């Protein structure tokens, strides 16, 4: 009995593998398993290798698997690229059509099946993917009924005949395995039978925005952010909102500033190149004290960098980018699940702190499917809409004309004063990116300048949000600082590091990237050492942390920037190096050369019950 298995399929991009994997993931999720899915893809639509990997477990999983149990390959290139990641004794199921060859010395069972021939006999080569699904179901003991039911739901609108064909293909795949390899089974433990959700971060961000009262979306397509807008386009007619595909990112964020000035909740979503373009207007929002929310699904940079690869390298751009000193808040969710409440909360923070709020998502979080507990998507559990300080229309009306001080010296503890919204009588004021006095009038008076700069900066001295979350042993020797997608691997690595080193290890999730929650970090790290795990080449968060005056001798960096996700092994290796005295550990790429049991870490990470 296995607590979890890892399924992988490799083939040519554009051959329908995307939806094959999606069906597989959804069915596994509906069967009651926890799913964590990820893929390798390139910035092209057809041709070139792609692979999809799914971890199915009876326990919550949020990181890539240590190895693969069942690898399905549709071309030789996929064997060459993927086979080295299989566990010893794993099954490699290949199409016999291309005369598959396993690398020499690989401890795996190569089985071939006539996928192509079977599909041709069914008169539709696309059925290959359904045959694969049927065969995979047989190996893993997933009920074929679940797959068939899902096919009805998903392709029902294409007619009964088409669905019947899919069913036949699935059955043929299933039966072929049952008949030919009756004794080869990867027996998965039974799940708890709970119904859960399966979604990507871009799905979650859209849901969170809707719950948070966002009714306007202005954006420009970019990988990996586009789906957020696509989701909202579909949902807005149901709740009365509008999603505009703007001409560029400059227009997108400026439109958000316009809408925020108007009192509505607007959002934009982008990735690195878009964040660069938005800097001028992020400054405008800071200067005019206008709420605005930006989701940044980070990807490999600089410039066009690696648009389909994972990275977390826009932290400095998000926190400090642009000219001048423009305060903003940067939040980071640690899972797809957290993106729902965090996105909703972002709107409340923007309205309460009157400044831009950026959400630091990343490519893996944005695009890869994860299991989400239904509680996280329960409307009753999500933050309630809190509009922040708004002037009372009646008091304003009684005030008289040309008197309202939008940037009043009467501020709340955040340095924020009530704003009027267009339409309110006598609330008229000038919101300007130029330095201004209390009524918004432009002035370069030095004393006013200092007052206004302090006023704007004061709001981010203490942001009222859950800035960190701690997991693992208290008073640890080593605390892993992680955020975004890296959190999952760090949490999985934590007990393994403890077991291998005998040291106490903790994981501190950073949910507030900027302003850096230095006091909280100091409290949890204590006399131990902080190891910042981040997907960038220069250690941006570590740099920011040290910049706040935190004892630099306590901070070490674990960096990966080859475009791939941190694995549990990377983190264990990095932690051991740091415990042995290194200040920095770089993951040099691919994990190539290490086979899943050559290394004790991976053996520990492989969850066999």
């Amino acid at each position, binding site marked *: 009995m296995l607590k979890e298995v890892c399924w992988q399929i490799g083939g040519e991009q554009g051959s329908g593998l995307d939806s094959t994997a999606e069906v597989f993931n959804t069915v596994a999720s509906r069967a009651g398993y926890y799913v964590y899915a990820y893929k390798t893809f390139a910035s092209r639509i057809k041709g070139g290798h792609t692979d999809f990997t799914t971890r199915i477990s009876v326990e919550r999983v949020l990181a890539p698997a240590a190895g693969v149990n069942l690898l399905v390959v549709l071309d030789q290139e996929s064997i060459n690229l993927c086979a080295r990641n299989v566990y010893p004794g794993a099954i490699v199921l290949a199409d016999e059509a291309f005369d598959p060859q396993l690398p020499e010395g690989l401890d795996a069972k190569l089985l071939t099946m006539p996928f192509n021939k079977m599909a041709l006999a069914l008169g539709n080569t696309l059925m290959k993917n359904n045959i694969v699904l049927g065969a995979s179901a047989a190996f893993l003991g997933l009920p074929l009924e679940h797959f068939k039911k899902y096919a009805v739901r998903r392709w029902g609108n294409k007619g009964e005949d088409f669905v019947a064909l899919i069913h036949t293909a699935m059955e043929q795949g299933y039966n072929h395995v049952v008949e030919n390899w009756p004794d080869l089974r990867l027996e998965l433990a039974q799940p708890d039978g709970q119904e859960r959700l399966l979604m990507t971060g871009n799905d979650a961000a859209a849901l969170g925005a809707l719950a948070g009262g966002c009714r*306007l979306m202005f954006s420009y397509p970019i990988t990996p952010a586009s789906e957020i807008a696509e989701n909202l386009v579909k949902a807005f007619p149901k709740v009365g909102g509008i999603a505009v595909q703007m001409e560029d990112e400059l227009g997108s964020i*400026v439109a958000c500033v316009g809408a925020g000035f108007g009192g509505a909740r607007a959002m934009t979503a982008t990735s690195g190149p878009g964040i660069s373009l938005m800097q001028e207007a992020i400054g405008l929002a800071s200067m005019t004290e206008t709420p605005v929310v930006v989701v940044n699904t980070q990807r490999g940079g600089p410039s066009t960098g690696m648009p389909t690869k994972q990275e977390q390298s826009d932290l400095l751009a998000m926190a400090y980018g642009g000219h001048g000193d423009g305060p903003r808040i940067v939040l980071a969710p640690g899972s797809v699940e957290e993106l729902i409440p965090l996105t909703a909360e972002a709107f409340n923070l923007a309205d309460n702190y009157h400044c831009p709020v950026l959400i630091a998502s990343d490519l893996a979080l944005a695009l890869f499917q994860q299991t989400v507990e239904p509680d996280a998507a329960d409307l009753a559990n999500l933050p309630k809409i809190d509009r922040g300080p708004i002037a009372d229309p009646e008091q304003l009306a009684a005030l008289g004309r040309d008197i309202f001080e939008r940037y009043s010296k009467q501020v709340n503890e955040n340095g924020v004063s009530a704003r009027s919204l267009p339409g309110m009588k006598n609330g008229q004021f000038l919101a300007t990116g130029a330095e201004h006095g209390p009524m918004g009038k432009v002035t370069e008076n030095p004393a006013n300048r200092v007052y206004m700069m302090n006023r704007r900066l004061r709001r981010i001295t203490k942001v009222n949000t859950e800035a960190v979350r701690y997991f693992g042993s208290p008073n640890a020797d080593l605390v892993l600082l992680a955020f975004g997608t890296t959190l999952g691997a760090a949490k999985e690595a934590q007990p393994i590091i403890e077991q291998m080193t005998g040291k106490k290890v903790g994981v501190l999730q950073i949910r507030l990237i900027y302003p850096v929650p230095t006091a909280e970090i100091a409290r949890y790290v204590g006399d131990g050492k902080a190891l910042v795990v981040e997907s960038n080449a220069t250690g941006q968060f570590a740099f920011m942390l040290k910049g706040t005056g935190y004892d630099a001798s306590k901070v070490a960096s674990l960096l990966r920037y080859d475009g791939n996700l941190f694995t549990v092994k990377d983190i264990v290796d990095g932690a051991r190096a740091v415990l042995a005295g290194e200040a920095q550990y770089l993951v040099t790429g691919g994990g190539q050369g290490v086979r899943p049991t050559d290394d004790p870490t991976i053996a520990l990470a492989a969850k066999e019950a």
Partner: protein
Amino acid sequence: MAVTMADFRTSEKSWWCPGCGDFGVLAALQKALVELGIEPEKVAVVSGIGCSGKIGNYINSYNLHTVHGRALAAAQGLKLANRELTVIAAGGDGDGFAIGMGHYMHALRRNVDITYIVMDNMIYGLTKGQTSPTSEHGFQTKSTPAGNVERTVNQLQLAIASGCGFVANGFSANQKQLVEIIKRAIQHPGFALVNTYSPCVTFNKQNTFDFFKQHLTNLDEDPTYDRHDRFAAMKKLMETEELVTGIVYEDPNSVRYEDRVAGYPAEGIVNRDWSVDPAVWQKLVDQYK
């Protein structure tokens, strides 16, 4: 109580040079709003950067002074947030047709119900006299001491070619006509362009008030001119090199962007309850089961 000119004035002293054409545009805008009886709190002026972009400082309304070239994007965002507002975007020729050209073209296509007033002085004023996209060919400026070798942007023809439903040109010194143009532009359902010749008395010694008086063709004086005819409008603009005043083109069948998008609420988004109906929410979440 009826709105008066005084309601639209602010205590702010002007930073414009005495005699600047922009004074006339400001006055015409204020007068048009008064004549339409729109309350100051229902008006939002969104401006760009430049001397012209300062217009929001001098009008008692909700004013958003943005960054260079981006007024149109902000104005559209604001209008879509609260369609009950009268939203005026305003700026200069450099602001609108150089750095802001991308937004200009797409605002024309989108047709959100805003009025765009351009104060065209054929030069960069605030940065002290460089060429602008509407500067004449051969015009000598600080950035073109040997004469401008580039062709000028024909912003009115561009507007018509891009499907803009209201294209007008005013002259800051012809108050009466400009007020009427702005009033109609505000009433037009959809994007309305009001380009205005608004001379820079400090840096543009060529395109002066006198120059415009001599060269402008007033369309209102031609009873045969049909402003609903797109082709005639294009022809007129080519013949006059855009040195016209009056409403050049008006599409009586213009439909706002707001009215073409399914599910966009009839009242302003700001004035709605933003909580999601639990039944709708459940459906959204159930997609992920």
